[in-house]
């Protein structure tokens, strides 16, 4: 039987960790001063793919659309999932794409991966800069794959060629639901941030160690695995990518106007113990007593 073919789509994003992120004085992100890394949700998607490598010996391809420096995200993803192949889709005409135009590039790229037809494609929950969460499902739809969102756990039934997955559904102002579903391959999965992979058997742990070692070696020589495609090499129609292929545009960006003061604050000096004591009298009133346990 052929091994499972797995694709992961990832994104290079600003690094929001302290020391790397830089904010302007008005609270907005200073992009020029902020480093870029593999997005945290892309990292989770890569971990989910690695699970299939360890458990089923899957063949993994990782792809991204972005400027040439986005190969760094691919390298970081390879380090996590021991990818066999890395794809970078990079062309000036891709710039400014909205989610639909991005999905067009990613879909076309997935069709060019080594394994041929994919069994599972993974993407992250959402990008930490764009935060739309739309690119994954739109790529899935263009591929014609069954889409499973917010997946927190999955396994493949190789015999039946199905995936069994748990999904976390959070509905604002309502309860949360965990839904267990079964779907025939191929599927497109967006991985929930809470996903954790577990390797329980000795053979899985051995495989884990083996592939992790391999991943480290591969990522050191990631260029050996890297294929770069421009629009022409990818064979996309320029009308459907980048700005021309984007239904939406950013019309304007403005500072969110300061809301009218909704409350009038009493200002208290934090080093004045008497005043802080008075705050507790207030808390006492509001809570109808202070809870004593």
């Amino acid at each position: 039987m052929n091994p499972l073919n797995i694709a992961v789509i990832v994104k290079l994003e600003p690094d929001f960790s302290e020391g790397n992120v830089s904010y302007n004085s008005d609270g907005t992100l200073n992009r020029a001063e902020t480093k870029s890394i593999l997005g945290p949700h892309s990292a989770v998607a890569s971990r989910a793919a690695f699970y299939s490598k360890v458990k089923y010996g899957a063949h993994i391809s990782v792809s991204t659309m972005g400027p040439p420096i986005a190969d760094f995200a691919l390298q970081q993803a390879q380090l996590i999932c021991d990818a066999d192949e890395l794809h970078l889709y990079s062309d000036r005409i891709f710039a400014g794409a909205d989610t639909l135009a991005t999905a067009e590039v990613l879909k076309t790229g997935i069709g060019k991966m080594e394994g041929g037809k994919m069994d599972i494609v993974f993407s992250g929950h959402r990008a930490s800069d764009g935060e739309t969460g739309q690119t994954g499902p739109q790529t899935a739809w263009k591929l014609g794959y069954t889409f499973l969102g917010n997946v927190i756990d999955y396994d493949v039934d190789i015999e039946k060629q199905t995936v069994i997955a748990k999904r976390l559904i959070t509905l604002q102002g309502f309860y949360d639901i965990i839904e267990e579903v079964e779907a025939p391959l191929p599927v497109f999965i967006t991985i929930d941030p809470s996903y954790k992979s577990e390797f329980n058997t000795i053979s899985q742990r051995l495989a884990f160690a083996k592939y992790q070692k391999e991943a480290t070696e591969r990522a050191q020589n990631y260029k050996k695995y890297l294929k770069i495609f421009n629009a022409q090499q990818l064979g996309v129609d320029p009308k459907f990518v980048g700005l021309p292929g984007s239904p939406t545009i950013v019309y304007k960006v403005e500072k969110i106007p300061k809301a009218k003061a909704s409350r009038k604050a009493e200002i208290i000096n934090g080093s004045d113990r008497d005043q802080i004591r008075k705050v507790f009298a207030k808390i006492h009133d509001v809570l109808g007593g202070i809870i004593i346990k």
Partner: protein
Amino acid sequence: MTVITSEDGHYKHLFVIIEHEEGKPIPVSLEMLGEARRLMDHFNKKYSSHEKVVAIVLGNKVRKLCEELIFYGADAVIYAEDPELQYPRNIIDTKIISQIAMNRECIAKISPEDWEQFKKPRYMFFAADNIGRHLSSTVLAELESGLASDINKLVVEDLEIKHEHKTKGQMMTYAKTLEMYRPDFSGFLWTTILCLDNRNPTIERDYHPQACSIIPGVFAPLVPDAARNGIIVDYTPRIEKQDLNVKILNRKIIKSAVDFDVHKAIISFGRGIKDSPEENIKLIEELAKELDAEVGVSLPISKKPYVTSEKITSTYMIPDRVIGTSGRKVSPLLYIAVGISGAMQHTAGMKESEFVIAINTDENSPIKDECDIFIKGRMEDVIPVMIEELRKQKELIMGVRSK
């Protein structure tokens, strides 16, 4: 200047995709209807037209819900009922919603005067939650039009647009354009997204509907009015076997580990903890324990920006604790904001708290306008004093009781 207005009747009405659990509407569904009603009332007045707010419902035994949606502001409801539609499933739901969005017979029943020209809805609303976010993406991929996510303000305007690609650099009027405002991840910037037809002859293309997903908890629902009338249309969907290949094996309702609703008090922290994150979070934890409060965080904290112990990171720096437009909306009796600057994205989630205390070093931070008491100082200095005073008071009370 060229004026093309798309006023040939191909694109009409505002469709609102309703989410519900077994016939009970999710709050955001009613919020979307409220905003749709306000927007289309304004639209119809401005353009002397009669375009409708059309709610779309998929499910099993949803007739009663349809009636309820009329009370909440819909002019019409198109529903598809089938046991297979009991719970949301992306593929089949996407296909049926797309069928309905292009179905002239349904529109003929709702708006008999202009159905012949109808191609697709003018506007479309989805919920920006776990279901709607994905559903909106796939529906708009199927309808091949534009989608903006996480919107919290909507305006319809006639806009003068000059765009390199859309208009080939010419100034053109785009009538009845939906301005979709979305707060960015920082909560300080507002980006307006437009979905515009390509009028540039080399890439000419219609992009309708103009669609968006709407942040739950932002817009107010209407007060339901049982005297409101509307048209309810039963749509029989075309369901193909391969569209049902996702089997739901089981569905379990779970309680989130973080439950803000059972606590009278909430203490939230933001990037102000940065000088010594581990120690500061422990202080906040201690104060929360003394006040029997639940702990919340601002959105940046859920991105785990600091190196802290595994326990602190996995307990506190998680999306489940986020309060604001990207997380939960809360209204406790007491809300304490520690080291939170007060971006709109956060305050939208805590505005309705009964009493708000902010602890912050910067008197100019926006949180000052959202609190009742502003304690100016470093949390490292203020919180230990608070804990100490609180313990003293408790001892006092205990002492009185034991006498």
